[in-house]
């Protein structure tokens, strides 16, 4: 009865563009439920009602197909395969006395007696797709079979319901999703050194600021150019870049426990955000006990709830520090960490105030144009990130928010130097700028 259609092409299609989710052509799913594997295409839509019978008929047909699909999709299983689950109101959990099925690889927890305990999210999800038959644990002799409506009535808050909607949305796509607080933590030694490191970094920041100011002040005075000379645009940029300090993004997983001092002197309230879900891409060897670092961490945000506001920067920083998921750029950068430090030192000594010394960065640029690609990727992707699932009255969209750092990436070019080099080369072609 319950046919599962794994039509990947289809939902990617719909997800790929918001404009497309706007068009729902139920005739295709109606066919799908009739076991025909068809990749749906966009339905044709009209500009506005034109009063014709043809249009009326097309609308009638579209609705008919939609409601036929809804009415024909019975939820449940044949008696032989039925798995009963029982909801306990006091613990807000459910248990399955005789558990079996694939879902156990990624959901629930089996206790010593072999009973599988489900979080409420998991229970509702499995019931909705017909895998589990839900009951309310009433007494020893009788349990009340629950409907979907009953299950939803047991959500304790609208926030929990929003979270569930996101949970189910990701589960349907095959992701492995767990509530973030249930996952065993790796490396919880943060607390012990946090006070010390924050003190160190605080004092370092102070010294750093002092130096920055010392360098800055004369630069922006009229006498500055009487004293100093710049022999490359790079030196000029280096001076300019000293004015405004910037927050650096956490680039390496290993550094995530270093707590930077974040001054919270905001007049506004700073909300403590919590990660809602840890998410893993679908994979075969997933182990609930040792799940490893999640691929994504998700925060659910209801854009219309008056109790919720989009995070401020202070809240973002707080969140980024709590993240544990893999970030796009991490692995790629970790290898070259040392190389980068050495490079920076070199660049510093080369560029500094030594006149006439060719900037190392310039050489590098010309030698390895591929570096450009990674820089642009770093800037576009950023570092640590989380996914924000935005709930808009039932429609869920996702955004990826990543901590970024433009401050350490210079994209300046030294036109003069490039020109000189080019004129030295014999077969200098008309310039085609590629940076």
């Amino acid at each position, binding site marked *: *009865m*319950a*046919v*599962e*259609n794994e039509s990947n092409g*289809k*939902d990617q299609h*719909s997800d790929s563009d*918001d*404009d497309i*989710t*706007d068009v*729902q052509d139920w005739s295709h*799913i109606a066919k*799908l439920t009739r076991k025909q594997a068809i990749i749906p295409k966009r339905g044709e*839509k*009209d*500009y*506005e*009602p034109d009063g014709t019978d043809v249009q009326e008929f*097309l*609308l009638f047909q579209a*609705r008919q197909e*939609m*409601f036929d*699909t*809804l009415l024909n*999709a*019975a939820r449940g*299983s*044949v*008696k032989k395969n*039925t798995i009963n689950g029982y909801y306990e109101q006091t613990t807000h959990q459910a248990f399955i006395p005789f558990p079996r099925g694939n879902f156990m690889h990624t959901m629930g927890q089996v206790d010593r007696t072999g009973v599988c305990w489900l979080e409420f999210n998991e229970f509702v999800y499995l*019931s*909705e*797709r*017909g895998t589990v038959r839900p009951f309310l644990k009433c007494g020893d002799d009788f349990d009340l079979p629950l*409907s*979907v*409506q*009953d299950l939803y*009535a*047991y959500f304790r*808050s*609208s926030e929990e*319901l929003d979270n569930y*909607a996101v949970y*189910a*949305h990701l589960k*349907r*796509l095959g992701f492995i999703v767990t509530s973030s607080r249930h996952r065993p933590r790796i490396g919880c030694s943060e607390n012990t050194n946090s006070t010390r490191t924050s003190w160190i970094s605080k004092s370092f920041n102070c010294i750093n600021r002092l130096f920055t100011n010392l360098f800055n002040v004369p630069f922006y005075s009229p006498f500055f150019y009487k004293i100093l000379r710049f022999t490359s645009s790079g030196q000029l940029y280096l001076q300019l870049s000293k004015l405004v300090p910037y927050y650096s993004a956490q680039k390496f997983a290993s550094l995530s426990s270093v707590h930077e001092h974040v001054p919270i002197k905001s007049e506004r309230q700073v909300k403590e955000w919590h990660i809602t879900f840890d998410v893993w891409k679908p994979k075969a060897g997933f182990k609930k006990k040792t799940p490893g670092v999640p691929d994504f961490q998700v925060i659910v945000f209801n*854009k*219309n709830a*008056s*109790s919720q506001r989009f995070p401020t920067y202070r809240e973002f920083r707080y969140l980024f520090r709590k993240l544990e998921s893999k970030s796009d750029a991490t692995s790629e950068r970790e290898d070259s960490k040392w190389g980068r430090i050495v490079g920076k030192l070199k660049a510093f000594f080369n560029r500094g105030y030594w006149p006439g010394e060719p900037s190392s960065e310039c050489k590098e640029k010309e030698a390895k144009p591929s570096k450009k690609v990674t820089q642009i990727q770093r800037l576009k992707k950023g570092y640590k990130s989380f996914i924000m699932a*935005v709930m*808009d*009255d*039932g*429609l869920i969209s996702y955004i990826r928010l990543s901590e970024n750092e433009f401050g350490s990436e210079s994209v300046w070019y030294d036109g003069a130097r490039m020109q000189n080099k080019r004129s030295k080369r014999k077969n200098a072609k008309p310039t085609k700028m590629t940076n």
Partner: protein
Amino acid sequence: MEALEGENDSKIEISVVGNGNRFEDGVCLVFDIESIRRLRRLGITGILTGTLPSAAQQNVFLTVPLRLMAEEAVWLVENGFAVLVSDREALEMGVSDLTASDWDEMDKQQEALFEEQRRFKREQHFEKLRAVGKTVANVDANLESSLFVETRNESSVIQRQRYDFDTPELQKRLVDQLLHSETLKSNYLVYKALRAQGYCVSPGSRFGGRYIAYPGDPLRYHSHLTVPPALRYRDEPLDLLQLVGGGRLGTGVKKLWVLGGVDDESDEGVTFFSVEWAGFG
């Protein structure tokens, strides 16, 4: 909007999931497919959010519950089409009221459903055998375990309690809680004005607004308007940067960016202005 609702139709039941006993930021849901059909005829589409058991691995086509915007729910209640029910309260009352005869009745209903399936399956089976020219006496052994056990959409327990909620005082209290902030109230006025002009209204964050408005059923028509949150008519300066962005947003997707102004000082309703990039400059 097509044919209006008949006077005699019973009210559509909207379940509200709140926070404990409070319904600020509550979520409004409809579980009954027939009700959803009626809503659609009224020009209210809502968003289907539940897993479709026949295609449980996708998100394009979903089933009940239908989630309504608070605006939609309030509009339905104000126009007498629907009643808000606190499902949690109703369920708890219902469960505690269940008597021995209720349990028996439920058993009987389930058994009746099974019996119907048995009859149908037997007939089908015999049909098949007859086609190949065989007759077998007993099929019940396999049949019993292949009976389908259904988890239904709507609750029978909650339905018994719904009438307790259909009082003007209670409904007003729930509506007030759903529209508890100034922002929500203003947005509701904008929503109502869009409905009054015949538009079908959906949540709009996909297009960068609070609402998007369609000239008819979204199944058949492209949306025409993207509506950002309501503005104060008199004293809220327009954010021109937003307006430039909004107007530009529309040109690509053939939608107008519509500003709705709400004036506390007059009852003249909502003043709309439609914005579109002029195509030059």
